[in-house]
């Protein structure tokens, strides 16, 4: 059993109110060194056996078609779990 890990982030120019809300709390907890927080999404797609190039290719297509909205989001990473980012 292997996993494909897909990371999706809002495009840099799109406002991220959730990230702002999280960022607003950090200083109250003493974390004052972080100037901005942006929140993204991680999807983990499980396959039978090891992750192959075909799995990665299909996962990239799924990421473009369903898992992200290209108007507001970027697929920043599609990789086999355990592989280098």
């Amino acid at each position, binding site marked *: 059993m292997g996993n494909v890990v897909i990371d999706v982030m809002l495009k840099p120019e799109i*406002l991220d*109110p*959730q990230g702002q809300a999280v960022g607003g709390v950090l200083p109250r907890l003493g974390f004052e060194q972080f100037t901005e927080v942006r929140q993204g999404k991680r999807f983990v797609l499980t396959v039978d056996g090891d992750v192959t190039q075909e799995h990665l290719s299909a996962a990239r297509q799924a990421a473009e078609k*369903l*898992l992200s*909205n290209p*108007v507001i989001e970027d697929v920043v990473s599609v990789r086999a779990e355990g592989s280098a980012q």
Partner: protein
Amino acid sequence: MKIGVVTFPGSLDDRDAVRAVGAVGAEAVPLWHGDADLRAVDAVVLPGGFSYGDYLRCGAIARFSPVMEALVPAARGGLPVLGICNGFQVLCESHLLPGALIRNDHRKFSCLDQRLVVENAATAWTSQFEQGQEITIVLKNGEGGFVADDRTLDELEGEGRVVFRYAGDNPNGSYRAIAGITNERGNVVGLMPHPEHCVEPGYGPSLDGLPFFTSVLQAMAQA
């Protein structure tokens, strides 16, 4: 005249949309998300609510439901379609309309009587308004901020495809205060505020929702 109203899992305002269709003397036809069948309707309303729990992104899962497989080509072929609130989000996710809706910039759910300016009175859903007319209808959403890149925004403005713009304070951070848009052909309209809640005396701030539905009746009569 038959106007279909789609029910997705999590739709909330489908019943009100059905009432609004009846209020102008048309026959409301319930359409089910799981059926790729438009039941020979002359127009379709995608109602507000939280289809599929707003999981993934608002409207993202509804886009791939069987009823949308039938609706998307029909809309491209000229079928009048009105997307209200979550319905607008579904239309954007389906690429029938450009742009996307994101969380309100102030991060709170908005529920208010909203003033709008009608900037395009030539669509299938707005012909019974006057160009520049100000109307007041209900706005209620958490993710109503309309966003698109500058090129798309310029194109929408240049082609007169901004149908409604917020008057007064911008309630959700929508780029250029855009409340509703249309496609090139003017048959598909999406907006965040809710005309279907403003069609009967005693409910809502006005009866300004009625012309949406009388407009489409006229468009259907001419088709």
